[in-house]
């Protein structure tokens, strides 16, 4: 390979058609309320783990919809339940997180 001093940069674009959403669908079958997330961000704003680990449940759900690996974010969750308290859609966020931690393989 010739060294030009620069290389093709990887596209940051998300391709919905190529996104692997099986995990998202699996999650939705276990936690159907995951579908009702409207991305308001309350969960992320109140998250205890957020400041330490960048955990954002909103991004987790969105990332799954886009077929991304969200494990790094999940690792920081302490299950404190504040997100459950603030979710305007009443999503059982703790169950969602636990289900998600289980279905990754």
């Amino acid at each position, binding site marked *: 390979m010739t060294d030009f001093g620069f290389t093709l940069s990887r596209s*940051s674009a998300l*391709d919905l058609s190529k996104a692997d959403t099986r995990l998202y669908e699996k999650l939705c079958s276990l936690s159907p309320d995951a579908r009702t997330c409207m991305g308001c961000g309350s969960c992320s704003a109140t998250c205890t783990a957020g400041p330490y680990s960048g955990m954002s449940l909103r991004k987790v759900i969105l990332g799954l919809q886009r077929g991304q690996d969200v494990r790094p974010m999940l690792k920081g969750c302490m299950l404190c339940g504040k997100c459950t308290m603030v979710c305007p859609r009443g999503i059982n966020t703790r169950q969602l997180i636990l289900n998600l931690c289980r279905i990754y393989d």
Partner: protein
Amino acid sequence: MKENVVIIGGGVAGMEAAKQLLFLGYTPIVVEQKDHLGGHVSQWNRLFPDMASAQDLVRHLGEEIVDANIFLETKVNFINRLREGYLVMLSNGVSVACRAILVASGFRLFDAARKEEYGYGVYDHVITNADLENWFNGNPDPRVPASPKKVGFVHCVGSRDLKAGNSQCSKVCCMTAVKQAIEMKEHFPDAQIYCFYMDLRLFGKKYEDFYINAQQEYGVQFIRGRVSEVGETLDGHLQVKAEDTLSGKPLRAQLDLLVLMAGMVCNPEAAELARMARLEMDSDGFLRSADNISGIVGSNRPGIFYAGACTGTKTVPETLAEARSAALDIHRFIQGK
């Protein structure tokens, strides 16, 4: 003899007003350019939030106004101010002297072809909300594939868009998109539906329930980001580009069908009427109401009233309520109270 009231426009606003005026003892003269009454609603299939039949609404209103004078395929040629009232000359040669005129000229659907980047009229599988309603009504449309797997809805086509000449929100499209997304999923249970939105403006009664339902029961995915351009792939799919603003990343999707939620703009005929009757136009391109809070149905001319979407985007129930309100205001005006 009963007193004449000219109603310009035979959509649901004009029909409802005619019905009320008949009840109040007047002879409404409904002037409609098209060959049928009911305006846009007559082309629609089902109406949110109760999924009522649009045709039924138009038919019921039609049954109520059989006693009115209805001139189809007729235009207003000019309006002359008389000492008391107006003389309205119609294109069919009839001229009517009346003390009150109701302008119910409605809206025009934004011409989606003007958003060239979406390729309406260029790509094989791009349709508008109106086309989809027409298809729901059982009229075949070659642009709707036999079994689409991925369907996209683009909100705000020709709304909130200075470049398209309409900076206003068309108000009903978000809800229409959610309704149509659900209906599409009912037609094609295997399809994944995406709604590309900038803001979801679901303001009305039970609209939010529709939204939640669309997400939970129908798995509709709402992607916050305006579609920037559409291309066609070799196999006839549509390649849509947008920014997934919630991810902060550019997003691509291949779709089988794209539905453009064309917004509402003022009927250009209204500008013509405004010129004839010296009515004022508002900055949003619609007719200017006497007052946007307490005098929505009033105009700047005595005896000329407005109802429905000629003064701005309206839902069907809002239009009907305005029509009733206008009929009452006309009655009070004629009674001199």
